[in-house]
């Protein structure tokens, strides 16, 4: 495979990661903040966002796994796309997600949101951590 293919593969992976992140962020935002589907009149909008998130997320995940299977057959491209720099970026993005989770927990604590539903609190912390980690990864990969 040529470098052009490595570059093309790199760009394609980035695009799929963007769509996957958007899908995940939309779906879980609707799921965490409106677990019962929202107030009357909002239900359709929430359902639409949730559906859109699921659709985008699943399509991107399916394409990404298909793409990774295809790339794995070419050792050079696979090695280039998983080189030490990207592995370091992955670790940095995870660390970023971890600290954002702690920050979210701290903010919720300071704002005395302990009265808020436990599930929602856990959801907000988890959401902040995962989404920030994904966004950090996209920024590093850019």
């Amino acid at each position, binding site marked *: 495979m040529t470098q052009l293919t490595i570059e093309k593969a790199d760009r394609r992976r980035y695009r799929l990661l963007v769509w996957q992140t958007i899908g995940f962020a939309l779906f879980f935002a609707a799921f965490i903040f409106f677990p019962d589907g929202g107030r009357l009149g909002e239900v359709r909008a929430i359902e639409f966002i949730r559906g859109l998130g699921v659709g985008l997320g699943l399509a991107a995940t399916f394409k990404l796994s298909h793409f990774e299977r295809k790339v794995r057959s070419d050792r050079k491209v696979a*090695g280039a796309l998983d080189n030490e720099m990207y592995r370091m970026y992955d670790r940095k993005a995870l660390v970023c997600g971890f600290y954002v989770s702690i920050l979210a927990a701290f903010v919720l604590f300071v704002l005395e949101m302990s009265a808020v539903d436990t599930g929602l609190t856990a959801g907000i912390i988890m959401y902040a951590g995962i989404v920030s980690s994904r966004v950090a990864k996209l920024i590093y990969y850019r």
Partner: protein
Amino acid sequence: MGQDNLRNTIKVQRAIKSITQEELAEIIGVTRKTINTIENGVYVPSTVLALRMAKYFGVPVEELFRLEE
């Protein structure tokens, strides 16, 4: 103790060999972005990658990378 900065001469070596970042990336087996970040000092490569680059350019690794106080 002062902050040590890693300087490199990859751009010069590339110019001598007349190759682009993309071509170097292909030879070394990384992406163009990786070469770009190393060249701009954003990313410090591992010893293995540094040695691979030095081997390709035919220079000692100290000539390719050096510490600057």
